């Protein structure tokens, strides 16, 4: 009974699962999407404001201004995580707080803070990427695949 594909469900189990599905409170998808839109949009809007500020007052050019913007958002996210408010905010905002780079920072900061009790090396050090690791792994691998396709088919990367 180990593999999802080979496991057979008995009729009793199927009947029960249908009952459970019927009674299960449905996720408020529309409400969640609306909240995600509002919060995610606001965070991005704030990011745009930051970026313009870096371009005007600190003379970063268009292509490079993204870097300090991202660093700023990450800093703010880590601070909110440290104060213990990010998770409360995220319960309301859902993907609106998880999808922007703030979510990435929260996943790393929360893991780092949580595992501090196991020491800085084995705790914080080893576990910091517990949640963010898959994003980096899959991002890197897909970039490699895209690069490979460009290479094989001789596509112009310019």
């Amino acid at each position, binding site marked *: 009974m180990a593999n999802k594909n080979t496991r057979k469900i008995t009729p009793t189990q199927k009947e029960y699962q249908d009952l*459970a599905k019927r009674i299960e409170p449905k*996720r408020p998808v529309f409400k969640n999407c609306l909240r995600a839109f509002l919060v995610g949009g606001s965070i991005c809007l704030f990011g745009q404001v930051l970026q313009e500020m870096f371009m005007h007052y600190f003379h970063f050019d268009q292509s490079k201004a993204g870097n300090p913007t991202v660093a700023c958002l990450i800093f703010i996210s880590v601070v909110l995580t440290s104060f213990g408010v990010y998770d409360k905010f*995220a319960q309301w905002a859902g993907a609106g707080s*998880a999808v922007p780079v703030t*979510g990435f920072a929260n996943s790393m900061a929360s893991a780092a*803070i949580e595992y501090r009790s196991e020491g800085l090396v084995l705790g914080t050090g080893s576990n910091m990427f517990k949640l963010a690791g898959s994003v980096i792994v899959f991002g890197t691998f897909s970039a490699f695949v895209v690069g490979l396709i460009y290479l094989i088919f001789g596509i112009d990367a310019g």
Partner: protein
Amino acid sequence: MAGHRTWVFENRPVIVGTATVVGPEEGNGPLANDFDIIHGDKMLGQKSWEKAEHMLLEEAVKLALENAGITKEQVNYYVGGDLLNQITSSSLTARTLSVPYIGVFGACSTSMESLALAAFLVNAGGAKHVLSATSSHNSTAEKQFRYPTEYGSQKPPTAQYTVTGAGAAVVASSGNGPVITSATIGRVVDMGITDPFNMGAAMAPAAVDTIQAHLRDLNRQPSDYDMIVTGDLATVGYQIALELFRKHNVPIEDTHYDDCGLMVYDLKKQPVQAGGSGCACSATVTYGHLLKRMARGELNRLLVVATGALLSPLTYQQGESIPCIAHAVCIENGGTGA
């Protein structure tokens, strides 16, 4: 023994002392006045969540012994468990107690699993005093089973909130207090539910299975009980259980049927989604609230059915469904007989 899996305790083991210790959220719940100690700091001033949970259990055990009027040297056995890997909260508490220790794992059904075993030991003449205790902590459970506590993931409405607390009881061969008259040991029931954020749906069949077995073994009806309470089915599992009772023609409406996960929190005011869960859910509600009601004469025969989901983070990641179990203990008012 009666029927297939019910023990009848003819020597009437008595619960001579209990104690309940909880955290701040439980202290803000509807049963706050029934708990012995409420902590305002979820970390209890300790260096880690795990150390905090260990402290909760130590405090509950110490207070239970005091309330029972015995010293730790008089405890013949300590039967206990918790949710942590290798049930370390219980083992570390056993280290402090220095008494013979039987560690058990029943996930959230541990309270009644250990109480049943304690009653069996005392009833069989194998011990004069047996301590049964369990604990759980919201943050240790989140850290071990789900995500770091500060991680911003959105919990679905079916999710449950692990109770931060500990409950302990001393069972003795004689004395004043509620009497344990029977216990039914559960078997693992798995209806193929795979969602760890919907444990109520996973556990309900096990609860119904054990309750049916208990009633069948003793040839009783729900009307023979003043109250039947499940450990932590919470909103979703409770609704499903009612459906299952109806389907199996169990007249549960003839008694007062409730669930500890629904009683320990105010679901409207506290952000606990479907309700409470954890080993301490059934333990603190039973030892703190229900036994007090029994002492006041409001309940004469109570059946506590603690429910547990026996999954691990690994089994879930490997695509396994959630096997569940429920253990039932029948507790009766010491004043009146069975």
